[in-house]
């Protein structure tokens, strides 16, 4: 394995508030975190992109509805279309759904309450760049903190997603009313994933669980492999 540290972008929107935690977590797991501002219309040379949690553009209209029109997101869409790795966490997940990069949408929690606590997640697939470091059926403890995390898809869409195995994580004890206990979905190609729980808040034993490192560590390894492939292609 190449020991080079892969470069991973974290996009900051006005109202993002987990961007620095995401950068810190990625650095701790062996990546170089590269901050990107929402007004930047092109991405720096990176092997992956993280859209962090927060309340982009004040969550006006619908969560993520305004952020999807930012210059940075156009660049992220192009990056994803070329097969680039994109992970959306919480508000980042909401933005990816609004942008049409992920299926479904996030609605207000069934309880209408903002929920901030650890939840237990079940790994549904380990053949994605975001879960390759996990074992099949493994349970992870990772915190959630959201008011609008109730993932929704109609029956037809859900059946399609289940058939294509696009549900990556499910809640053991559904906290927000999400259809089919969905906590994370990926696109058909598998290079874009969104999840409501916050792996970046679960990488240091000081704050409890370190299970988030399995998700972000998988992303760092996949980004490293992608950087190595590109470097090899450039040499040959």
């Amino acid at each position, binding site marked *: 394995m190449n020991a080079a540290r892969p470069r991973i972008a974290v996009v900051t929107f006005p109202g993002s508030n987990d961007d620095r935690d995401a950068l810190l977590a990625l650095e701790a797991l062996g990546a170089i975190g590269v901050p990107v501002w929402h007004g930047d219309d092109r991405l720096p040379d990176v092997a992956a992109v993280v859209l962090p949690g927060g309340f982009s553009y004040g969550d006006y*209209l*619908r969560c993520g*509805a305004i952020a999807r*029109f930012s210059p940075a997101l156009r660049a992220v869409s192009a990056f994803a279309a070329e097969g680039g790795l994109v992970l959306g966490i919480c508000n980042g997940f909401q933005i990816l759904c*609004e942008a049409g990069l992920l299926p*479904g*949408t996030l*609605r*207000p*929690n*069934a*309880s*209408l309450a903002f929920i901030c606590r650890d939840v237990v997640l079940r790994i549904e697939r380990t053949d994605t760049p975001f879960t390759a470091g996990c074992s099949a059926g493994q349970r992870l403890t990772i915190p959630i903190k959201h008011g609008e995390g*109730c993932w*929704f*898809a*109609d029956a037809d*869409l859900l059946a399609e997603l289940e058939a294509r195995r696009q549900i990556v994580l499910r809640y053991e004890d559904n906290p927000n*009313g999400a259809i089919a206990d969905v906590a994370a979905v990926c696109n058909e190609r598998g290079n874009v994933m969104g999840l409501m729980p916050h792996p970046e808040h679960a990488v240091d034993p000081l704050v409890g669980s370190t299970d988030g490192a399995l998700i972000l560590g998988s992303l760092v390894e996949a980004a490293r492999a992608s950087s190595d492939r590109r470097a090899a292609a450039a040499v040959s």
Partner: protein
Amino acid sequence: MRATVLVRPKPGILDPQGEAVETSLRHLGFSVGEARVGRVVDLEVSELDPAAARAEVERMCEQLLTNPLIESYEIELGP
């Protein structure tokens, strides 16, 4: 031309906000069946032709004002 867009949660979509309003109205002693909560967007559009204005507002609804997966909309054009 003025345009008003009424955005509603689609039938069958869980509307916890509507349920909370319904419960509160009952607590106040009102007799209500179902309550659903949507959103109103008032717009001033520069297009003067009603058909063209409606078509333009429809495009706004599809691209930004609503999420077609969970919301329906109705457009009212004013003077």
